[in-house]
């Protein structure tokens, strides 16, 4: 495998909003090395989340090519993308998006339902993931019984439980106070440094971006490197 985990080549994404055509990304080129931790900043509507969606196979570019690992996402069908996502990508959202009807442990176990692991193996892996994020003692708690920071930790555990190579984080600290935000960011840094996870994080928060190895500025559909 090459040292580049993800590559975007001349990627454009154009949306049709009624009669209006909006070009969110314009012939974008980006290489993300294995083990990198990138923060993407930029104003609302600049295409940050679209970029994340393209890397995660949730969206397809209007033109250009997206490759992650050995997979050329632009050549895959929706169901192929679904299966690929389950083992290669971990998503972390701003509002955690845990399923309220499941305990923390069951939420973390969800991606493993798509594997052939036995129930025992799934339980073991979910416990390890919860342990990594420091919430082993909250396994049986429902999301409503957890604080915002704890919910986000569970969401991170869910993102890493199937051992994906790439973590995509969309404003992971946007709903947290400074103290909790810093804890989450330290956790992401730990996953990057200790567990070798490649991380792409979209954020509005300059302090959060400081945790990354490099910062990219997204505006008017193009990317520009900033000092990290």
């Amino acid at each position, binding site marked *: 495998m090459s040292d580049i985990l993800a590559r975007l080549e001349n990627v454009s994404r154009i949306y049709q909003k009624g009669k209006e055509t909006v070009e969110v990304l314009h012939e974008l080129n980006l290489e993300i090395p294995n083990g990198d931790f990138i923060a993407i900043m930029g104003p609302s509507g600049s295409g940050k989340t679209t970029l994340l969606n393209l890397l995660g196979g949730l*969206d397809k570019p209007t033109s250009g090519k997206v490759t992650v690992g050995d997979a050329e996402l632009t050549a895959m069908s929706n169901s192929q993308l*679904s299966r690929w996502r*389950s083992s290669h990508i971990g998503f972390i959202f701003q509002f955690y998006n845990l399923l309220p*009807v*499941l305990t923390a442990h069951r939420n973390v176990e969800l991606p493993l*339902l*798509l594997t052939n692991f036995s*129930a025992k193996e799934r339980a073991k892996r979910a416990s390890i993931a919860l342990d990594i994020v420091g919430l082993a003692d909250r396994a049986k708690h429902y999301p409503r019984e957890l604080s915002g920071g704890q919910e986000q930790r569970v969401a991170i555990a869910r993102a890493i439980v199937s051992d994906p190579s790439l973590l995509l984080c969309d404003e992971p600290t946007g709903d947290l106070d400074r103290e909790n935000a810093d804890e989450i960011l330290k956790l992401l840094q730990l996953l990057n440094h200790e567990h070798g996870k490649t991380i792409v994080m979209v954020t509005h928060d300059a302090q959060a971006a400081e945790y990354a190895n490099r910062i990219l500025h997204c505006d008017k559909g193009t990317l520009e490197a900033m000092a990290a």
Partner: protein
Amino acid sequence: MKYFRLIWKNVWRKKIRTLLTILSVLVAFLLFSLLSAIGYAFKGGEDVADAERLIVINKISLINPIPMSYLNRIQATEGVASVTHATWFGGYYQEPQNQFGQFPIDPQSYIDMYPEFEMPAEQIEAFKRNRTGAIIGEELATAYGWNVGDRIPIQATIWTKADGGRTWEFDIEGIFTTSDPRGSSALMLFQYDYFEESRAFGKGTVGWYILRVSPGADTVQVAKAIDLQFENSPSETKTSTEAAFAKSFTQQFGNIALIVTLILGAVFFTLLLVSGNTMSQSVRERISELAVLKTLGFTDRSVLGIVLSESILIMLIGGLLGLGIGWVLVQGMAEQMGAFLPGLFLSPGAILGAVAIMIGAGLVAGIFPALKAMRLSIIDALARA
């Protein structure tokens, strides 16, 4: 099965709403089980009908009698192996609600005609010897606690006696069972001769004839030949198979099958609206959660399957509970009303049919919300959330 916990938890997301939906499903399938059992009881005669037995009734209607003099002419018709007859007595025991089938018959030819009625030979002989003797089915004996040797009074509702009395007394000489589990033994048979000499009116007539066609004979031709003989007579006949006769007999009470179908149709249509609405609401409330599942790698088909499974599960919980309660009630009704309405039974066919309806209704109620969930755009749904 991996997804069962997720499906189960989703079903109970809004407990009260789910409970109310399950309750409506329960009531629908409770009704289904009761009406099926009643329908089965009415249809029982058709199911146990013998294809080689034909019934001759008055062409005007079943309640119009036929002359006794037809017996020899029917017997002499080509293709007829044997003939017997019966008449509806229509009495009750002690109280008007204690009604069951009573028929004056010719003992020898009738018992020969119905080999499915089984009883000891000595009881048959005792019945033949005693002019006021009667034989009863096991169901009746159990229902009223009657034994061989008992003398029982039956109040006539149609046939008054020549002396003006309405009470007919019979000696129980035998108790028969039926070898066909779907057949009823809630019957009382007694001597036609006693009936004929004691009744105040209608002498020289019978209710209907039952005949067995000779092996190899064409039943349609035999039926036509009999009816042709009595054409243009004061009592024209209508000959049909035993199944058709049983059907026309039950249709005196109305078209039970149609009534049952209409009631159940209305109930299940309402049920589909209720459960369809529940599923639609359930999907609308968790658009973002479904989008998250897809983000994690659940395919469109998996999401479709999960939502459909939730809908089917709700139907199965309510339906099986309703069927269970229905089964218990039918058992109770069969004990209480067995003599009046024999054959009350929740058949295996009805149970299988009910389970098929549960699954089918679950699919129909859940299909539109499930398709909506399947077609959900992850990006749009997450953006809205």
